């Protein structure tokens, strides 16, 4: 083989990069996040139900609140009727975060795992900030 050292080093680097997920996780157990729904408001609920069903919330909550944002601010509609026919106020801080007041143990636990960092909190107040009255 000609220039064997250069070619083999290059190949080794490539294979190393491609298998990065494998060797970087060796001997490390990864726990899937368990979002906690243990908040004062949810505890008081007789039936522990979200705005929509669990599967929909898990997969599509970001699109739902994005629609809420557009409906509330562009069309001026602030009332959402869910699949069960209940009317809900379209609000991030006053609806979602009222029930899910444990943002760091709920929203953030999933988001850190999935590597998303919603920029909403640049402007919107987290439940903690609301309580502290910032």
């Amino acid at each position, binding site marked *: 083989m000609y220039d064997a050292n250069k070619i083999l080093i290059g190949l080794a680097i490539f294979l190393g990069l491609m298998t990065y997920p494998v060797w970087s996780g060796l001997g490390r157990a990864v726990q*899937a996040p368990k979002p906690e729904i243990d908040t004062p408001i949810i505890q008081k609920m007789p039936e522990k139900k979200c705005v929509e069903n669990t599967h929909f919330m898990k997969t599509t909550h970001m699109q739902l609140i994005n629609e809420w944002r557009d409906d509330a601010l562009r069309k001026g509609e602030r009332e959402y009727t869910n699949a069960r026919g209940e009317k809900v106020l379209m609000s991030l801080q006053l609806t979602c975060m009222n029930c899910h007041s444990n943002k760091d143990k709920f929203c953030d636990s999933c988001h850190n795992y999935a590597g998303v960092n919603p920029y909403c909190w640049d402007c919107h107040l987290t439940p903690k900030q609301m309580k502290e009255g910032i």
Partner: protein
Amino acid sequence: MGITVSLGAVLAIIFVALIGGSTPGLQYVFGVFLPYVAFAVFLAGFAYRVVNWGRSPVPFRIPTTAGQEYSLPWIKQSKIDNPSTLWGVLIRMALEILVFRSLFRNTKAELRSGHIVFGPAKWLWLGALAFHWSFLIIAIRHVRLFVEPIPVVVQALDTVDGMLQIGAPALYITDLLLVVAVTYLFLRRLVVPRMRYISLPADYFPLLLIFAIATTGILMRYFIRVDIVGVKTILVGLSTFHPTIPEGIGAIFFIHLTLVAVLLAYFPFSKLMHLGGVFLSPTRNLANNNRMKRHVNPWNYPVKVHTYEAYENEFREQMKEAGIPVERE
């Protein structure tokens, strides 16, 4: 013809994966078995191809000399286009691999009022650049779904890619670029008659496959949402060798994964190997030092030589008898 075959193949893969992805018993085959096999084929095949190329003899340097070679001190050398040192070669290779410099020099011959005119042709270069860089960034972004904790670089790239902050989940710039670029590269083959004439199924298939991968990915992110936490559980399971398939993952994910698995398994046997090949292009990666260094031809077989000294030793007596002068008595 080539298009029909390629399109048929891609649609067949999607169809099979759709059935596999929506049949609970088969999900394990499509979500665990197939990706493992495909990845193993990819790594082994890639290594085999590169080593195989590496074993080719290199009898002498054959770089394309696109400038003045190293010569007398008062003649200015073109150090990158006709490199004679390792550094020159490294810069030349970096420009080639990172910004496709030789594609940038693409020209187009045109007949203008009876004269042949060579004009610049940059669209292919631009399309190729957009396509390859988007593909790379998208591939790196996907690392977030394979490892925990997520490396800072990957997270930062994700943020930059989504910086337009359009909608939720945020629109990625590279998603847009990739689809536009791959569509352009495909249409180019379809619309330009000369391109169409030289295009084979092996040209259409990868483009359609990548188009299908991009489309299913975009569908999954913006339209037919799947549970990303569940998806990450599958993929982390694969990379840590604890495969699991949580319930409730949509078939669209299995279609996407299967298409990627096919791409990986197909990679080493196709023109896509230019990923490794570009590093091994002898016309780019060899320094033009043919006359500065000794390059031994590997095909030289050991030649049997009979030196004059040995000849004289053998025939000294006969030579003396015949009166031929000898060097040593």
